[in-house]
């Protein structure tokens, strides 16, 4: 089957029960997508499929035929970081960095739907992405900063 990941087409022959997470990590060596809980509890494996944030640990590769997958490796344009990535660095919105790819992709999807979220919308919208280091306050700040004009009110 054909999988389009970060703009490149890949022909993969994954068994029917293989998850997108395993295909990305083990077949395509895109290891930015992390395996943490393997059951949709932590958000570390989040990728975008046709712009929607999904848990790749709960997504079967076989169901992704012809769809467009974006992983953390596809967020920057060459050496130019996405403003959200830049904001994560500027606000120190990470410590160990293991949850960071999932956080960035969830935030990307959130901002695509709601370009000027309130702080509350960010907190609720990203509460499915766990961070054990506790970078949460700075992640919120980074996402709001990347949203550009700052949070909408009311």
């Amino acid at each position, binding site marked *: 089957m054909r999988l389009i990941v970060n703009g490149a087409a890949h022909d993969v022959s994954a068994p029917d029960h293989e998850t997108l997470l395993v295909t990305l990590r083990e077949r395509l060596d895109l290891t930015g997508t992390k395996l943490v809980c393997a059951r949709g509890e932590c958000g570390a494996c989040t990728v975008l499929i046709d712009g929607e944030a999904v848990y790749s640990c709960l997504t079967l590769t076989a169901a992704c035929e012809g769809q467009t997958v974006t992983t953390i490796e596809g967020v920057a344009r060459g050496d130019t970081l996405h403003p959200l990535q830049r904001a994560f660095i500027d606000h120190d919105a990470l410590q160990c960095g293991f949850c960071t790819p999932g956080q960035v992709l969830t935030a990307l999807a959130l901002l695509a739907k709601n370009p000027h979220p309130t702080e509350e919308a960010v907190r609720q919208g990203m509460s499915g992405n*766990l961070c054990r280091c506790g970078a*949460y306050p700075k992640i919120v700040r980074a996402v709001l900063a990347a949203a550009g004009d700052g949070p909408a009110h009311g």
Partner: protein
Amino acid sequence: MAERSGKRFVTTKVEVEGREETKVVELPSRDPEPWRDDAPLTVVGCRVPRMDALEKVTGSARYTADVRRPGMLYAALFRAPVASGRVTLLDLSPALAIPGVRGALTAADVHGIRIDGVHLFDIAIHYAGQPLAAVCADSLDVAERACRAIVCEIETAAHVVTAERALEPDAPRARSFGNRARNSPRVVSRGDVDAGLRDADAVVTKEFRTPVALHTALEPHGAVAEWSGGRVTIWESTQGIFMTRNEVAKALGLRLSMVRVIKNYMGGGFGAKNGASHATYTAVALSRKLGRPVRCVLDRDGEQRDAGNRPATIQRVTLAAKRDGTLTAIRAETIVAMGIGGWHSSAAKIYHELYRCANVHTAETWVFMNTSAMASFRAPGHVEGAFGLERAMDMLAVELRIDPLELRRRNYADHDQEKGRPYSAKHLDECYRQGAERFGWHESRERAPGSGRLRRGSGMASLIWGAGGGPPAYATVRINRDGSIEVLTGAQDLGTGARTVFSQIAAEVLGARIDDVRTILGDTERLPFASNSWGSITTASVGPAVRVAAEEARDSLFEAASQMLDADVGELVARDSEIRVRDNDRSITFAALCDRLGDVMIIGQGSRGPNPDNTAIAAFGAQFAEVEVDTETGHVRVLRIVSAHDSGRIINPTLAESQLEGGIIQGLGYALHEERVLDKRLGVQLNANMHDYKIPTMADIPVIDAFFVRGSDTVANHTGAKGLAEPPIIATAPAIANAVAHALGREVSEIPLTPWRLLSR
């Protein structure tokens, strides 16, 4: 900067994770003047962005679980489903018959390897989740399927999984010699507690309980091992590359030079990743047996069941005081429920340290049970002990009708009473003052909690943590021919910021641009020794060694420059990677200078000197919390936390504040949600996943104002910096619990403060 003469090797004391160790140390080549508060520093103290953030936000950082070697196989562990018993049949043949399965390990393959007192793959079952075998296959999927195909028959035996039951005379024995650790109870006392109780105007007594908490690092324990020419290379998610190397070499009878341990990035440690683990030995043994690289990374279930935990405690506490609040006696009987093994982390220690009191008596008992072994977990012992002590202090404050903060101030310890020695520096009073002011403590306490469904309350707690670091630690600084600079030291960056902090120290000394400096960590074969990154010691241990190495390199660089610029060394100053002659316009960049030197490499070596004699070194802090309790649902919402810290000089305020916030958030989870839940009848854990074991989410986070009070600790070491990663978690649970008690007007004695605990009274 005098050259040392006389003795080269001396002994010194280093406190790690609450344990004081005596170490032999080689005196460094030089002993720089300490950086005092008024030192004109331009890079140290700056908010330099985290230097490995780019790799982390782009997904290019390779963690251990991401390492892939040509021909690599995948291992999975088969675990005991019961808490006690004996394997009577272990048939691996159905597993080995599955296509793609390449081999397996049982006890016979790993003879003599023990972890926490248990033989690896022991057929005697000591706790549920204990590994019994490992299987290796072409893919993880096949390896896991093969594990499920193993046929295992077990003769079960009686088990014990609570400390109280374990201490009863007729309890099943978790360890052959009994359930009580041999040194228990360990009694530590000073003064005369009975006299202190007689002299008291007020006495409070209460039993406190704390839960088993799980580290829940996002990256599980894991290793990739590859043998070549009789040597093994191990990529490991570890806080201690040298400890892992030493343990593997010892277990396998190898020379240290035959074992190489590498750690580039790791997805959290929090104390649980301090040496060779089940995953390490499994990868190493399977790789040797099969002649191919092997990756063994625990699955989430295994990580939550058997990868270390903060042990549960029971603390029976009595505090006594005069009418004016002066403490006259502190007594605590503490029980630490270790599980099958671990080490003697002490909940009692903080009772001797935090407040001034002439009469203190603690008796501590460590208990073995049929549960997985405890491990260090961010400020081990102090987190547990602080809950009991600081809750009891608030009960005493109620009894005496004294403001809780005022009560703590009246019992301020101006020296280390346990050993009768001064502190290198202590600014806890400043933490109280600034913290109370930023929190609005007095206004907040005076506000009535309310009588409706939602009640508000405020609470606070103090902390102390021996975070002085110490030797040995080594660093090398080298300057390449283009002027780029490398700092090499065998420490680890857990996500704490060590790479950034060491680069800042080197840049400061050399007068280099921070962007010109790169710190290389985590490789036993290529780097000089640094200790485990535990006990909040890395900055205070390794930082001074980096400073000395950079000074040596700078001296060589200046000597070369003095010839090229025709000036005395004393006339030279460096800034932004350029050396200038003072009062003169002659200058040369590092790049131009080093290019002229060609492949003559400027190299500086540094080491960490001894700690000052007869001096206690500690970090301090005070935390203030405001909560809202829903009296109908029992839900506690933390509204805000103010946390004031004294950790000496702060090398990078941004990264340091990130550590504080992270510690507070972990402490919030410990206070409100986190506990390992066991089926006591079966002795099996019920919440070995990330949904039912509840760590805080982004929606749970209060407004956090965490900051440092000023004060370089120039007695502690010549950088003035002390540790700061563990301190913030110590005070959070008691501050929150004290706020809940204030809101409800009744005492709380057990965490986590889940709704059923708050309502079932």
